[in-house]
Structure formats: structure tokens, C-alpha cells
């Protein structure tokens, strides 16, 4: 396994565009901290976003993982190009001739995905920890380390998403087409949901039950949007007579669904590669 990571690291180490995008990606995560500096005056009241409780432990785990997860779209470019380059440089064929097996090839890419996801998770952890220690109203140990399952969900979400990218890149061989396909799939899930929700099963919850098993929706459900959970937003909602009572927890079902998709994507990548004449 170390050998595979070592091989993959050699490929990445000298690749300028991958390095640049990775650095930008991690810099963007730190930009979450910039939200803290948003400040404006509203009806002669100084309003500071950082004081609205978004950086309070343990809510910060939810808030930061949700925001940082959006940046994964950016990193998808790296994952897709890592795989499609192997086709366009024809180095996949050469790797196999040199003695890498097809299983090892897919595994080396998957390990890279896991490594990137882990690095990103650790990075988000550190950034959130620092922001929290600066701005949080509560800094008791027990509160700081509550709700850390959002970080697990974040990790699973990234691994699932990058595995999807990896599978698409193996499938269509070209980075642009793979990213296009990803977008088309996203649109497809949206349309499919709309048809179910307002067409076939109008007025019921069946559509939501079905759509949660789709890959992108399942990844989306792992970390639910945190905004309606904010104290300010909830009080406004109750004033207009809307009662927001939903669960923001990371559920085992969602983790299981995304894990199964991750397994399928990697397995299918291997099956495609095995069947294909290079």
C-alpha cells in the first residue's frame, strides 16, 4: 500500500497544475476565517458576523464542514485530471506493461483520494479549532469535542464525491467530459426529483425517500445546511409563524448510503478497466 502511495506521490510531486490547485484549495478553506471579519452597520447597530454564534463550539463543526464541503467541487478538477492524464499521456498502458496490475492502479488512485480527503478533514479541523478558540463563547473541553461526527461526515462526503469523479474519469477518459458528465448527473438528479415530487408522488414524502439513495443527494444529506439552525434565523422564523423543527444530525443511514456508493464507484472503475483494451 505504501508502494502504491509512493508511486502516486511521484506522479503528483512534479505536476505543477495539481500542486497549484491543491494549494489554492487549502488556502480557500482558510478563507472561511474571513467570514469572521465581515462587519456592517445596520440601523446604527454594529453587526459582526463572528458574534452571531457561527463560530461557537460545537456548532462550528457543522458550519465549517458544510462550507468547506462546497470547495470539493474545485478539487474535483485535480482528481479527474489525475486519472484522465493517464489516458492522454498513454501512461496507464505503460504503467501496466511496467508491472502495475489494474487493481493496483485503481487502488493507488483510491488511496490518493482517501489521502486528500483525510488531509482536507484534518485541515478543516485545525482551522475550525483555531477559529473556535478565538471566537467561541464556550471553550469547555466537553463542548469543544461535541458533534465531531460532522468531521467524519465531511471525510465520508469527500471520499464519496472524489470516488465518483474518479469513476467518471475512468469511464470517459477526458477531464472536460468527465466534469461535464458530473454536471449532467447533478441536473439529472434534480429533474428526477422534481418529476417524483411534483408529478408521480405529489403531496407525499415518497420522492424524498427515493432520492436520498442517489449519490449526489446522499452526499448532500450527510451534512445538512446549518443556516436555519442559527439562533437569529430561528427567532425570525418563529416570528413569521414558521417552525423549523428538523434534525441536523449526521445519520448512520446517510453514511451507509455514501459508503456503498463509494464502494460501487471504485468497483465499477476496476471492472471497466479490466474489460477495456488499452
Amino acid at each position, binding site marked *: 500500500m505504501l*508502494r502504491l502511495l*509512493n*508511486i502516486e506521490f*511521484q*506522479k503528483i510531486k*512534479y*505536476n*505543477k497544475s495539481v500542486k497549484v490547485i491543491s494549494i489554492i484549495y487549502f488556502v480557500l478553506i482558510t478563507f472561511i476565517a474571513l467570514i469572521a471579519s465581515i462587519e456592517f452597520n445596520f440601523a446604527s447597530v454594529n453587526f459582526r458576523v463572528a458574534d452571531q454564534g457561527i463560530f461557537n463550539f460545537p456548532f462550528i463543526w457543522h458550519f465549517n464542514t458544510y462550507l468547506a464541503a462546497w470547495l470539493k467541487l474545485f478539487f474535483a478538477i485535480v482528481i479527474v485530471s489525475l486519472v484522465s*492524464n493517464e489516458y492522454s*499521456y*498513454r*501512461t496507464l*498502458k*505503460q*504503467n*501496466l*506493461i*511496467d*508491472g*502495475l*496490475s489494474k487493481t493496483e492502479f485503481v487502488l493507488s488512485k483510491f488511496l490518493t483520494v482517501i489521502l486528500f480527503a483525510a488531509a482536507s478533514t484534518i485541515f478543516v479541523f485545525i482551522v475550525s479549532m483555531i477559529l473556535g478558540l478565538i471566537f467561541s463563547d464556550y471553550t469547555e473541553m466537553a463542548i469543544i469535542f461535541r458533534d465531531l461526527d460532522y468531521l467524519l461526515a465531511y471525510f465520508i462526503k469527500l471520499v464519496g464525491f472524489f470516488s465518483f469523479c474518479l469513476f467518471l474519469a475512468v469511464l470517459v477518459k477526458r477531464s472536460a467530459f468527465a466534469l461535464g458528465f458530473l454536471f449532467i448527473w447533478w441536473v439529472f438528479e434534480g429533474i428526477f426529483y422534481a418529476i417524483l415530487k411534483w408529478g408521480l408522488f405529489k403531496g407525499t414524502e415518497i420522492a424524498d425517500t427515493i432520492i436520498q439513495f442517489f449519490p449526489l443527494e446522499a452526499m448532500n444529506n450527510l451534512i445538512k445546511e446549518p443556516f436555519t439552525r442559527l439562533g437569529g434565523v430561528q427567532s425570525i422564523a418563529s416570528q413569521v409563524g414558521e417552525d423549523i423543527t428538523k434534525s441536523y444530525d449526521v445519520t448512520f443511514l446517510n453514511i451507509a448510503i455514501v459508503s456503498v456508493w463509494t464502494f460501487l464507484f471504485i468497483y465499477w472503475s476496476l471492472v471497466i478497466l*479490466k*474489460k477495456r*483494451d*488499452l
Partner: protein
Amino acid sequence: MNTILTINNLTKKFGPITAVNDLSFTIEKGNVYGILGPNGSGKSTTLGIVLNVVNKTSGEFHWFDGTGTTHEALNKVGAIIEHPNFYPYMSAYQNLELVCKIKGVPTHKISEKLNIVGLEERQHSKFSTFSLGMKQRLAIASALLNDPEILILDEPTNGLDPQGIHQIREIIRTIATQGTTILLASHLLDEVEKVCSHVVILRKGKSLYVGSVENMNASHGFITVKANDMLQLKATLENSNSFTSVKEENDTLVAYLKEPMDAAAINKLCFDKGIALSHLVKRKESLEEQFLELTKNN
């Protein structure tokens, strides 16, 4: 003799097209083999199958004694297929480092192999700045990294200038003298003739001949002769029972020998009949002529 590769009844179909058709041959240790065949005769496909990048439709092949998997066997094989494939953004040295990691060999081999192909001065230049000849030489160095028992080269001189072709041939000869078995696929007959001791001839995915270059054609060569009285000469040759056929070509006669016979004996035969030859050449068919002869008959 040790067998390196055994192929039995191998078949590969791409949709309706049969690229390799019931192909069987074996590669023995220590020889330099040429796989000859026109474009599209299944050379690259066959190599692709035995190197695990193309899936066979039916048939069977195994490396060495057939005990290990193909994946394990590839550790003892060095191969380049078609175009040299490397990561353009890495230097020659970095690319070979990667190959070392894949093959699991120590990196100190790199400079030794770069030396063989004469690239040590350019080892830190990016692969994308290399000329085709240099890329091809780097590919050979890469294939040699694990000190393979067999080196497989697919069209190694394709697209090179005469100087590049010469360099590659010299390298192949050097490697061959060190006892490495070489399998060279090519459609260039003179290339195979210059480098190889054995040939496998393919046509439309079938093998027409497997064996040494000398034994390829059972014929004993042919003579071209000229004399003042061509008619009498032709009659003499036809009556002598030493030739399988006598043909007129331009203003000379071409006669194919039925049995070994040296030029002096032929000269004497004619002189005894009162014919003075003005031209007499005896030679063997070139590989090209033999190849055309073989592919024509099937």
C-alpha cells in the same frame, strides 16, 4: 532450451474484425526474434495480449514455465509498445524513478541504463523537450531497468531519422550480445534481417512461419545468367535437372536451384555445352523476397 513465452491458439476479435487468429508460437531463451508482418497483421495486438493490456478472446498463453501469473512474469520482462509513453512534465530521471518504483528495483540502476542509451547528459531535461529518437532511447532504458530476461520492442525505429534508426539498432545489438532475449516487432524487413536470428511471420493474424532466418526458405538460392545465345542457354539449363524453374527476366535468365550447387559447377556445365557465360551471379533470396514469397502462397 528454456522457453520464455508460449502462445497457444490465441485469438482476438475486435467486433467483427479478427486481429489475431488462432496464433501459436513459442519464444526460446537467448534468440533475437523478429515479428514480421504488414501493418494490421496483429503484431501489436499479440504483444498487447501477452503484456496484459489487451484482453484475449480465446486461446491461451503463458510466460516462462507457466507457474506464475502474467502480472508476476512482467517483473522479468521489459517492453515498449508503439510510441514511448512518459509523463511530459517530469525529467528523464524522474520518469525512470517512477518506473523503478513500479518495478520495485533500486534507483541506482537509472544512471547505468541511461548510459547504455547515451542519455546521461540530458537526464534532468523534461521529457517533453526530447526529440523522438531520444524518447525512444529513454523508453529502451526504462524497459531495461529491471534487467529483463526478455526485451520486447514494438516498432522501435518507427518515425526516426536514419541516424536515430542506426543508434537504436546499435543499442539493440549491444543488448543482444549480453544474452538478453529480444522480441522485435517490425514491418521493416531489412531491420529484422540485420538484427534478428529468428522470425515469426504474421499475416492477417495467423503465423506463417516460426524459426530461424536461414531456414526460412528451403530453397538453395538462385542464379542469374547471361550469354550471347540466350535460347541455347535456356535449353541447357532446363535440361540439366538442377533447377526447379527457369525464367526470363529482362535480358537475363533467372534459374532456381533444386539442390546445392556452386557457381563454378554451373559455369562448367554451360562451358561443357559450348556456352560462354557473360554474366553469372548466384545468391540467396533476401528476406524481403522470402517474405513476399511466403505471404503470397497463403
